[in-house]
Structure formats: structure tokens, C-alpha cells
């Protein structure tokens, strides 16, 4: 075992934990760890001389306990949940907290209480002497290590199946959720139970997974492919038959949609799926009404159609975007504005989704396998509709366009632009000066749509919007002839069209220029149509559409992971069982965005690049799988697969065991394929796959072997199984020696984000934010759309802080935020960020932001959605940030007194002073009160003169802080060692899958302090944990 020598040496050295630090900076693998094995082999804890002395000491103080404590704390009464009658001289794991509490109370002088027999100072000292030594003795005891068998979490299981079998379809859907440990993590050995139900789910998942991979390769695949082309007049043979689509549905005109089934072009034999074109339904819809009566339908347009359900805002208080129509057919394709989430302006989700809401509805799609949606799209060279109220005061250089004299074309004008630049287009309506918008920005009810097309140098730009004033749009034009066309839908006629040159520094020119710098984000969603809206899930992240030229944007996924209507064959309802492919320009924020031009949407699935598929080949076409003898074939397949699945080489008996399963199954079924399949399933329900196993032969700590280390590292830092590189290092036994470099590689790999997602969510309790029911009236900006991004912010931030090795103080305050446009807008940092959905580091220069403490995902999560909760916030800070958790609440906690005229703060003060509550709440509330300046939306409350916020707090050490800034300064100057230690403690707990033992806790504190003093960062702390004995031994 490579590294064994230095390891033993460091064990001896670690008797003095601080000594071990010296080696941490050396290029030695085995760095100092806690003194778990520091006790001689033959010394049983109870026999230690020191412990004998403590027992004697205990005997001498027992009369004191009887006189001063047992009245209330005997085995029957055990007031406050503390009983001292049957307590031992030295605590065990269960009574450890009682000892800690007794020490706290005795030191603080809060026990015995005033009405009890007073305790002489010397007696107090004697009692304290025993309790402290007893506790110390317990904490110094060696903790036996017997290796570990830790079940994969559901997330890890999912990743392992995916990596192993190369299938994206989630087969673990029926696995029960993992329990959360007291430390807050789901990956702890102690809470990862394995019930029969879980094992049943594993068997179910394994069978599904293997069946998906072990296809019949002799049978060519059937593949569905269709394309929807968009654009005015794209369909030369439009159909007139009006489709009945139900409430609030718009179909694109048949002339603007062309549906085709292009031939498959594959390098292997396959069969096209010809989509069904004839249907018979009895139920359909007319507007909002159901109609009954059998009807025949024929044509591809009944199998696939392009629809814009709810896009005109009919169901959302007639919302109309004053910046122009959400969607518009043009000869080049379909123009889409960003799809504004309905809750952005309503506070609640609209049933019919965002506006606009373009979808391709489809009757049939495959049920399994991967699929691909290809969208041909471009960024529109767009013009800007002038916001009402601006543009009107500009007067100079007005150029009047000449109306066409052709009586058949009175909606056309001509003008000659002398100079290239930005022009304001004015449309004068006869007899009307303006139709100003309503108070909420919505167009006046009597204002109608005006459609304008501007052609210059062969390019036509089109826009349709409500007419509210003559100054209508801003457009960048080259010098030369300009052809204009305008059509107004209202009763008035268009009097004149003017073009007005704007200087380049005019606010409207600047706004147009800023818009033209931005790029739309294309998103594809897949789901199903319901009578009351849609259920859609995104197909991968949105993609930025950079170019003005058309390009193909490809979205792929496993179709079984998306919502499925699950209706039976032959359902008689015209609208039942429809799937929908939604294509959107994704909304980031309210800033002006050029429209997205969509030319075509194409679907293909199941998606195969080769046949048989790569996932099949990886399992079934391995060296030796072409042997003549069936048993040899099976052996090759099973050994290769099990070696990958179990993340280490097989033993001979394991190999035999699998082959026995294969033989038995083949004997029973007579089917070689079936036998192989059964044995593959057996691999996946075996403990070697389901558990992370660290084999041990003694209670002493033993070093991990290379394969165990490879798995431990990968499941820690990627939440996934080790990759080929880690396994080959394990095979060569070079993993320990290169540990630092490997850890760096894992941290810098994209898979590190999977670690962060779990660790940050569980450490910072983001699950509370997930279930928060926020008061939409009071916090309309905390919409579902915004919450999704706020939820991501802490994860991104921590990834950034660790990767850049930021100092631990940055957890409390950092001058850099990790935000995207959505989050930046929520903070009011709008102008600073133009990154769309990408999270980027931004220096913020704001006193109310920075670090973990002020994240809305944390602070809003620690509220009830209406009011902030200082107790929750205090408990969170104490537990998570400074790792000084308050004791569990005692039984029979009295309620907060019913004094409604008092503020929560005042009621808490009362509650705190009540007997039995003081102890705990002194360790909770003071940490939460400084956050009083942050509302239940997680934002600093705007400074209003009337709203006096009292964020002062008397901290447990007697320090008084006046406000949050002072509190943060206090944490940075006085508590940064605790912050570093808390980070280390939580990370080590997560990394090792178990709670650190008391000696390990001490080592973690010392290690964190050492890193602080030498200017080390979070990455250094993480690497120190990986290099520690706690992590590297079993």
C-alpha cells in the first residue's frame, strides 16, 4: 500500500495535532489528521488511569448533585429534559449534550436557580471540575473505525446509472427520497437506510435501465421526423378548415405554416415513422364550450399544428405589451418577443403560460429514447417601439414621406434619407393627437394596432403595436430610398408619415443601440397540453442567438423525462393526449430585447447516431463478447460491466457468482439474451453497486485503497462515480501520491457543480426557499421566474469562491456577487449586468449585499413568506455559519405570550426571559435580530423615514451591535475563525458521510485557524480535508 509508511508516522505525530500542520504544506500526501488511534491497542477506555481519577472525583461530588440538582433533575421529573440521577462519571454519545449543558449553566451561574439551595463557589468549582474532565475524557476516547458501507443517495444512484449505461432516461423516479440527517445532509451513512421498498425500487430501476440498453440490435429502429416551417405564405396549399382548439387558442394561419416529413438520412438501416393523418373524434371544442358529435379529420395539419395559446393575454387581465405584439408572422419566419412569465405582472402563474406562448402541438411522439429538436433561428435586426411619453418633443429636421399616388396602394410611402443614422418614425392619425396609455402603462382601450414595414436596401423591418402617439418607432437606416408601409386597424386614417433624424447621443438612439447589443435567448420546452394550460419542462438550458443569420440550434433530451399525457389509445377527445413543443425567446428582464426570428422547428426521435446504439455497444460489444462459446461471451460482458459498475476489479468468486446467475437463468429460460440481461440486473442490485464500501479488518483506522479513494473523491466532489482517469490512477496505485493534483482537477471540472448543488442546498437549507409560499401582493417581484434564478445564486457563488480560493471571510462579505440579469434586476443592479442567464462575477459596491448572509434564497427562505423571522435566521446563523448550534428545545416550551400589541421582537424578549427558554434563545435570537433590516423577500428594506428598523442586538458575548453593518463587521473581526471552522466542519461531514468525532472536530477547528492565519482560502480548506486522515482512512 503506497503511502503507508508516512501515514503511520503522521499518526504518531498527530498526538499533537498542531504538530501535524507543519507537514500540511509539504508535498506529502498524508497530512495531519485527528488523533483517532492515539491510544495504545491494549488500553480499553474504562481502564485509563485518567478515567479512574474522574470516577473518584465523580463519587466525591455526588452529594452535591443530590442536594442541589436532583430536586428538579431526577429521573422522574427531569425538568428541561435534563436528568442527572442516573448519569455516569463520563458521558457517552447520548449524554454528551447534557454534560455540555451543565457546564454552560454552571459557568453562567444560571443553575441552580434562585429558588433552589444555593451553591457555594468552591462546590461549584468542584462540580465543574468533574463535568469538564468527564466530558474531556469522553471526547479523547478513540472512536473505533470499522470501515464503512454507505448507500448511494438517490441523486448519486441516478448519476451512476446514467454514466454506466449511457442513458439519460431517469429510471429512478420511484425511489423514495433520502432522509436528511441532523447535520442537514442526505449523504450521511447513519441516515441512508435501505428498506425493502428502496431495494424494490432499485430492482425496478435496474430492470428498466438494462432493458433500455439491451435492445434487439438486429431489428432496425423506427424513427419519427417532422419539420414545421414558418413564415407568411410559406404554405402554398393552405387549408381552410378552421380547427377547434378550445379556450384562448390562436392558430397561426395555415398559409404561414408548412408541415413536412423530411426523409431520414442515416448511415444505417432504419424505418421512418409515418405520422397518422386520419382521425375520428367525438369531443371537440368551440371557444370555451365542449361540442359532441363524431367527426372525421384528415391531414397532417391535424397531427401537428402551430399554436399560440393564451398569447394575446386574454386570460391575464388583457395584458398587452406596449412594446409591441408578442408574435408576428413575416415572410422570413415567426418573430417572437421574450415570453414574459405571467407571474411577472400578476404575482401568480397564468394558466396559459408566458406571453407569447408559441407551441407546436403534436399527437404522437416516441415514448422512449433521446430526441432532438432543431430550431432554425436568428436574432432580428429590430426596431424599437417608442415608449409612450417620449419622442414627441423632438422637432428639428422632420422629413415628410410621400404617399403613394397609386389608389391601390395608399398604405405606402416613399422617402429619401440623406444621411445614415437613427430615425424616429412618426405616424400621424387624422384628427387625433395621441391616445395616452392608462395609469398602469396599458394602452388606452380605444387605441388599435398599427402595423409598419420599413424597407431599405432590400431589407424590411416590421413591427406591430398599439398606436398611442405619433412618435412610434426608432430605426437605424442607411442613406438612400426608404419604402414605408403602414396599416392602422382603428377607424381613423393615417394622415402623414414622418421620418426624423435623431442625434447618436439622443436617449432614444442610445436605447436602440443598447437593444441592438443584446441577443435573445432561445428556449425549447416539451410537455403536454391540458385543458387549463400546459405542463412543460425545459429541454436543456436556453441558448443565446448571436447571429443575424439563420443558424440551427439543437436541443436534446430523453423523452421519458418529460411530462406525458398518458391517455389511452383511441381517446375520443380531439384535444386529449396532445404533446407540445414550446419555442420561446426566454425572458430575462424588462430591458429592450431584439426579437427572435424562428424559421423552422424540426423534431427527430428516437435519436440514433449509430446502430446498434453506443449505449448497447458499450455493454454488449466488449473484448471477448464475440467468442464462439456463449458462456465465454457472457463472461466477457458481465466482467467488463461489473468492473465498471462496482468501480473496481472483480474477485474470482464475484465473477463466478455472476456467471452462476447467468447459467441458472439460461437453464430456466433457454434464452441467452435473457440470461445476460438477468445477470446485468443482478450487478445493479448488488451491494457492490448500491453502496460505497470501504473494507476494514480492524477497529483501527486503515488507509483507503486506491479504488475506494477514487470512488470517495468522485462521489464527494462530483456527486458521481469516478471517471476512467480516476480509475486508471487507482489501478496504477498513483492516486494517493497525486492527490493534490487530482483534487484540483475534480474541482475545476464542470461536474464540481453537481457537488455544489447538493452541498450548498443542504448546508444553507435552501429547501426552505423551495417550499416558501411568498405573499404575492406584498412581494410581487419574488415571482417563480425570479426565484428559480435566486435559488441558483448561492450555488454559483460558492463554486466561484472555492474555485478562486477566496478567503473564508468572503463567506460573510465579498465585494463580488455572482449574478445574472434576473438576479441583478432583483437587486436593482440592472445596468451592471448584460449577461442574460449566465452567472458572472460582478463587483457590487453595495453595503447590503455580498457573501452568504444576504442571499435572498437564504433570508426569504428563513421567513414565512410574509414576515422575516429572527428566530429562524438566528438559528440558521448559529448552526450553519458559526457552527455554534443551540441546544434542542426542551419539552413543554411555553408559547409566545399572547400580547398582540407587542412586536415579535418584544414578544421574543419576554419569551427569552421565561424560565426554561433563556438558555436556548440567548444562543439563537441575538444572531437573528441584526437581520431585521431584511424583509421576507430577502432584500434590504428600503429606507423610509417612518419605517424605523431596529436591527440592534446584544450578542451572547456581550457585544452590542447597532445594525447589520456593525454585525457583519463583528463577524469579520471576531468570528471569522468560527466561520472558517463551520465551513470546514460541514464540508468534512459531507465529504466523509458521517459526523466528525470530537477529536476530529478539534482538528478541523485547528486546521481552519491555521489556514486563516496563513492567508489560506476555501479551496485550501477543502484540499486539507481531502488530505486528512478523517477522509483518507476507514
Amino acid at each position: 500500500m503506497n503511502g503507508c509508511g508516512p501515514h503511520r508516522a503522521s499518526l504518531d505525530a498527530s498526538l499533537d495535532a498542531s504538530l501535524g500542520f507543519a507537514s500540511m504544506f509539504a508535498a506529502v500526501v498524508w497530512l495531519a489528521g485527528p488523533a483517532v488511534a492515539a491510544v495504545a491497542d491494549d488500553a480499553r477506555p474504562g481502564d485509563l488511569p485518567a478515567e479512574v481519577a474522574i470516577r473518584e472525583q465523580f463519587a466525591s461530588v455526588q452529594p452535591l448533585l443530590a442536594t442541589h440538582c436532583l430536586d428538579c433533575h431526577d429521573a422522574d421529573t427531569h425538568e428541561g429534559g435534563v436528568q442527572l440521577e442516573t448519569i455516569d462519571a463520563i458521558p457517552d454519545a447520548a449524554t454528551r449534550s447534557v454534560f455540555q449543558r451543565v457546564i454552560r449553566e454552571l459557568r453562567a451561574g444560571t443553575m441552580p436557580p434562585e429558588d433552589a439551595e444555593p451553591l457555594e463557589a468552591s462546590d461549584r468549582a468542584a462540580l465543574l471540575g468533574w463535568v469538564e474532565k468527564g466530558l474531556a475524557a469522553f471526547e479523547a476516547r478513540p472512536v473505533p473505525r470499522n470501515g464503512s458501507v454507505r448507500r448511494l443517495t438517490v441523486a448519486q444512484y441516478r448519476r451512476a446509472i446514467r454514466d454506466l449505461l449511457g442513458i439519460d432516461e431517469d429510471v429512478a423516479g420511484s425511489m423514495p427520497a433520502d432522509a436528511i440527517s441532523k447535520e442537514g445532509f442526505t449523504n450521511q451513512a447513519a441516515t441512508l437506510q435501505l428498506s425493502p421498498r428502496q431495494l424494490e425500487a432499485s430492482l425496478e430501476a435496474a430492470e428498466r435501465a438494462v432493458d433500455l440498453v439491451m435492445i434487439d440490435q438486429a431489428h432496425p429502429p423506427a424513427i419519427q421526423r417532422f419539420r414545421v416551417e414558418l413564415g407568411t405564405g410559406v404554405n402554398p396549399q393552405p387549408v381552410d378548415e378552421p380547427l377547434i382548439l378550445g379556450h384562448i387558442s390562436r392558430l397561426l394561419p395555415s398559409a404561414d405554416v408548412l408541415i413536412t416529413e423530411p426523409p431520414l438520412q442515416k448511415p444505417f438501416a432504419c424505418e421512418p415513422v409515418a405520422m397518422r393523418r386520419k382521425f375520428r373524434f367525438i369531443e371537440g371544442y368551440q371557444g370555451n364550450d365542449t361540442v359532441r358529435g363524431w367527426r372525421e379529420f384528415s391531414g397532417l395539419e391535424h397531427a401537428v399544428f402551430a399554436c399560440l395559446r393564451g398569447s394575446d393575454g386574454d386570460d391575464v387581465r388583457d395584458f398587452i405589451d406596449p412594446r409591441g405584439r408578442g408574435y408576428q408572422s413575416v415572410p422570413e419566419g415567426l418573430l417572437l418577443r421574450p415570453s414574459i412569465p405571467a407571474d411577472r405582472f400578476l404575482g401568480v402563474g397564468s394558466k396559459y403560460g408566458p406571453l407569447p406562448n408559441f407551441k407546436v402541438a403534436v399527437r404522437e411522439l416516441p415514448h422512449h429514447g433521446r430526441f432532438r429538436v432543431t430550431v432554425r433561428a436568428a436574432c432580428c435586426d429590430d426596431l424599437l417601439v417608442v415608449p409612450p411619453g417620449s419622442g414627441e418633443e423632438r422637432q428639428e429636421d422632420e422629413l415628410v414621406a410621400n404617399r403613394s399616388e397609386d389608389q391601390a396602394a395608399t398604405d405606402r410611402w416613399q422617402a429619401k434619407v440623406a444621411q445614415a443614422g437613427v430615425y424616429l418614425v412618426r405616424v400621424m392619425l387624422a384628427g387625433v393627437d395621441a391616445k395616452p396609455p392608462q395609469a398602469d402603462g396599458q394602452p388606452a382601450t380605444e387605441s388599435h394596432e398599427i402595423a409598419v414595414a420599413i424597407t431599405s436596401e432590400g431589407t424590411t423591418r416590421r413591427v406591430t403595436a398599439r398606436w398611442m402617439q405619433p412618435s412610434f418607432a426608432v430605426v437605424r437606416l442607411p442613406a438612400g430610398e426608404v419604402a414605408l408601409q403602414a396599416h392602422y386597424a382603428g377607424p381613423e386614417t393615417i394622415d402623414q408619415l414622418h421620418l426624423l433624424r435623431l442625434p447618436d447621443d439622443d436617449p432614444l438612439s442610445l436605447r436602440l443601440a443598447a437593444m441592438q447589443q443584446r441577443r435573445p435567448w432561445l428556449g425549447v420546452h416539451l410537455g403536454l397540453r391540458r385543458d387549463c394550460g400546459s405542463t412543460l419542462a425545459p429541454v436543456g438550458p436556453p441558448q443565446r442567438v448571436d447571429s443575424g443569420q439563420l443558424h440551427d440550434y439543437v436541443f436534446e433530451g430523453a423523452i421519458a423525462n418529460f411530462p406525458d399525457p398518458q391517455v389511452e389509445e383511441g381517446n375520443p377527445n380531439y384535444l386529449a393526449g396532445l404533446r407540445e413543443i414550446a419555442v420561446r425567446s426566454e425572458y430575462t428582464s424588462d430591458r429592450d430585447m431584439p426579437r427572435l426570428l424562428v424559421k423552422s422547428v424540426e423534431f427527430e426521435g428516437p435519436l440514433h447516431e449509430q446502430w446498434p446504439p453506443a449505449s448497447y455497444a458499450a455493454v454488449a460489444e466488449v473484448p471477448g463478447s464475440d467468442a464462439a462459446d456463449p458462456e465465454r461471451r457472457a463472461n466477457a460482458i458481465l466482467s467488463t460491466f461489473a468492473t465498471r459498475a462496482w468501480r473496481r476489479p472483480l474477485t474470482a468468486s464475484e465473477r463466478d457468482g455472476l456467471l452462476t446467475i447467468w447459467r441458472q437463468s439460461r437453464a430456466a429460460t433457454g434464452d441467452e439474451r435473457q440470461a445476460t440481461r438477468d445477470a446485468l440486473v443482478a450487478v445493479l442490485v448488488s451491494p457492490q453497486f448500491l453502496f460505497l464500501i470501504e473494507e476494514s479488518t480492524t477497529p483501527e483506522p486503515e488507509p483507503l485503497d486506491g479504488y475506494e479513494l477514487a470512488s470517495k473523491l468522485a462521489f464527494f466532489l462530483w456527486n458521481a462515480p469516478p471517471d476512467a482517469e480516476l480509475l486508471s490512477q487507482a489501478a496504477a496505485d498513483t492516486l494517493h501520491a497525486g492527490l493534490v493534483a487530482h483534487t484540483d482537477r475534480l474541482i475545476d471540472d464542470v461536474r464540481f457543480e453537481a457537488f455544489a448543488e447538493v452541498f450548498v442546498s443542504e448546508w444553507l437549507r435552501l429547501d426552505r426557499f423551495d417550499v416558501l409560499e411568498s405573499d404575492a401582493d406584498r412581494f410581487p417581484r419574488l415571482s417563480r421566474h425570479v426565484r428559480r434564478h435566486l435559488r441558483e445564486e448561492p450555488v454559483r457563488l460558492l463554486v466561484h469562491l472555492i474555485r478562486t480560493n477566496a478567503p473564508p471571510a468572503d463567506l460573510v462579505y465579498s465585494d463580488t456577487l455572482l449574478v445574472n440579469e434576473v438576479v441583478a434586476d432583483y437587486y436593482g443592479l440592472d445596468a451592471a449586468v448584460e449577461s442574460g442567464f449566465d452567472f458572472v462575477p460582478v463587483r457590487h459596491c453595495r453595503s447590503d449585499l455580498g457573501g452568504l448572509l444576504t442571499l435572498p434564497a437564504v433570508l426569504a427562505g428563513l421567513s414565512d413568506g410574509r414576515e422575516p423571522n429572527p428566530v429562524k435566521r438566528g438559528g440558521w446563523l448559529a448552526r450553519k455559519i458559526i457552527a455554534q448550534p443551540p441546544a434542542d428545545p426542551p419539552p413543554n416550551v411555553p408559547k409566545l405570550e399572547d400580547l398582540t400589541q407587542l412586536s415579535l421582537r418584544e414578544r421574543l424578549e419576554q419569551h427569552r426571559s421565561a424560565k426554561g427558554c433563556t438558555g436556548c434563545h440567548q444562543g439563537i435570537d441575538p444572531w437573528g435580530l441584526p437581520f431585521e433590516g431584511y424583509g421576507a423577500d430577502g432584500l434590504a428594506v428600503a429606507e423610509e423615514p417612518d419605517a424605523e428598523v431596529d436591527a440592534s442586538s446584544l450578542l451572547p458575548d456581550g457585544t452590542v451591535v447597532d445594525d447589520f453593518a456593525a454585525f457583519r463587521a463583528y463577524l469579520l473581526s471576531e468570528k471569522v475563525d468560527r466561520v472558517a471552522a463551520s465551513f470546514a466542519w460541514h464540508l468534512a461531514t459531507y465529504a466523509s458521510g458521517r459526523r466528525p468525532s470530537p477529536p476530529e472536530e478539534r482538528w478541523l477547528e485547528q486546521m481552519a485557524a491555521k489556514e486563516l492565519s496563513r492567508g489560506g482560502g476555501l479551496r485550501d480548506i477543502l484540499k486539507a480535508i481531502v488530505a486528512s486522515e478523517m477522509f483518507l482512512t476507514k
Partner: protein
Amino acid sequence: MAARLDRREVLKGIAGATLVLPALEAMGEAVSARPPRRFCAVYTANGMALPRPELGIDEWRWFPSVDAAGQLKLGKSTEPLEPFRDQLSFFGGLSHENGPKADSHICSDMWLTGAPLQDPQPGTFNSVAVDQVVAEHTKQHCRLRSLVLSIDSGVGFMSRTSTLSYDMEGRPIPAENSPRRVFDRLFRADASALAGRRNALGRQLSLVDAVLENATSFAKRLGRTDRETMQQYLASLDEMEARLAASEQWIDTPVKAQDRSFLDLDASPEGEPASYYQTMFDLIALAFDADITRSVSFMLSREDGMGISDTFPLKLGLPQTHHNLSHAGDRDGLLAFANYDRFLSEQLAHFLTRLSGYRDLDGTLLDNTLVLYGSGCSTTHWPKDLPTLVAGGRGMGLSHGHFVRDGEQRMTNLYVSLLQALGIEQESFADSTGSLNCPVFG
């Protein structure tokens, strides 16, 4: 290993000869004279509204009153249960001895077990829940030994459990919360699939057998390495094998024909609370009617503001979350809390109505089912005087219409009475001191 294989051979032989096991006789057919006896435990967290007298809203107390003639008078929060007044009884003064000793939020973990969670036995998690004792005694008669339902799936975590049920070793049993998954589990075995299913089960059974064999030798090699976890794995595998063997027996027994068209399987905890609860109750009633299981637990909400159920009062237009409502001390707050109690009573009434609607061998389903409804604390964090109600069971000799309040009594004594009423000869359960002496159980 030999014993297991023998059993397998026996089962195979029976299936092959299409013999009917004695245990199967009661299924679906009226062979046995005694109708099946069933148990369903329904739990709501955070207690019930019990406003103090000086607030002047006594009619909103969850506990009923009794008039001079000894007639039960239901309050406003239980008014929806009025049609069942002579088929249910209330119990006051009950509590778990261990309740006040333990963490105040742990009452839901303890509700069906009564375990000393403040000082658990070394190496144990919890102790067996009463529904699982019922399951252990009824499993041979039905397809599923028990059905464990909850508003949040999985097990949650100790002190904030999301399951009420703990197996014979005190391990939490993960709960299901999706109506569709529950439905599939209960009914999705149509005749055409049965042959395939038998085939698959047979293969699974031999597969599990083989895995068990390999894993046992692997466990031997591991030696002392984390022995407990490996034993848990082997025990689970063993249990799984037993389940597969049991399922195999049921394959040839068709599920009773029932009208299930009214089920709203799209109901979800994210949707409208009433339709979710009612769908889950519909499923329980159907499962009882088809005798698929005789033991059910259903956790309606979780303690201390955990999970989605905390937001249900907001969805119903009440001013605060469930946990916050439960903390109310003022008149308006308690009225709002009591209104939520009333909402829950409506859901329970829906369940009792469904049970009354199915004919059993003798009387209605409700007559042969014990429904236990209650909470692990009376008002939040006060684990005494637990609000408790028992409905149904006339066919088991229960007499109803009582409000039992006889000083302080142990909850586990009520459980002993319930077990005995179900025909389970058990003298004690957890820390019981006997059965409950009251007119309800005769």
C-alpha cells in the same frame, strides 16, 4: 439457503397445479364467515384549535361537549362529521408518556409508536408503529401488507418525519404521496399482463435469490466492516423475496371489479388541497373494498411547518401557514386555525362517507374498519391531551357517540384496545399498562 429453495419449489408446485392456498380463500370470495377487519390511521400535525374560555369562542374547540342527556354535541370545527355522530367517539386526556419528555416536535414520529425517542434503545431508530402490528397480523390475507401514505413522500427525518409507519424493527417506512403511483400499486394489474407478470415475478424471485446468495458470501468477506448496514441490506433483500413470493400467490386472484372512474389521479399536493386529500381517501376506501390491504396510515400534514402542507391554509385563504396558525393565541388567529380544523373534518367526513358507501360482507365498510384520527399534540408543542377520534367498527363491537375523558390515560392503552377490537390478541403495546377502560370498546 436450502429452506428458501424448498419454499420456492413448494410455491412453484402450487402455482403449476393451480391449487389455491388456504390463505387465499378469503380473497374476493365470501368463504369466510367473518368480514375482514381493517385499520386506518390518519394524522394531522400541529394539534387542533382549543381556544381558552375567555375568548368566548368555545364552539370552535375541537373537542366536543356532552349535553345533559349524555348526547355528543360537536363543535363548529367538527360539524362536518355530524352525519357520523353515532359512528364515532372522541377521546380526551390521552397522551404518550414519552411525549412530554422528548423534543416537542417529535410527537408525529411517536404518534403510532409511543417510543422513548428522548432516550432511544441503542441501535434502534424508533419502535414498531401500531399500523404495522396490524399489518403483520393481516398480511397473509391480502395483496399488500400495508399502505403508507403521506403528504410528502419518503421518510423525512427524525423529529420531522414524513411517514407515520415504522416497521417491526422500528425503521421508517417511506410513504407514497402520488395518487397515480398509489393507484398503479393497488390496481394496475390488468388480466392481459398477468401472465407476463407471473413470468417476471418468477424471474425476479430467482434473481433475488441468487443476489442474496452472492451478497451473503460478499458480506462474509467484508467481515466486521460496517456489519449493521450489510445486515440491513440482507434483511431487506430477504423481505423483498418474501414480498415477491407473496405477490406471486396473488397473481391468479383477480382484483375485485370496482368503479374507479371517479378518481382524479392528477390531484397532487401542489394542487388544490381538498381534491388531493379526497383522492387519497378515495384510494384508501377502494383498497379496503377490494381487500388489497387491511392496514393504512395517512399523514395529512407535517410537524413544525415542514413540507407543502404548511401552505395549505394559505391556499384556502386563511391568513397564515399551518404551523404559524397553530401558534395563535388570539381570537382571530384561533378562529382561523379552527377553520382549518373544520376543513380537515370535511376531508375526514368525505372518507367516512366513502367507507359507508361500500357494502361489506356484513354491514358497510365503515362498520368493519377502525379509523383513528388525531394529532400528536393538542396545541403546538404540547404533547398532552391529544385530540383523538375513533370512527367505525360497529361490526367489531364498538359502540359510539361517546366523549371519553377519564383523567389522564395512555395513548398506547387505546392502541391495545384498537388491536384487540381488530381481533389481534395482544395484551400490550409499547409502554401500555392495559387496555382503555371505556364504553366504546364495551
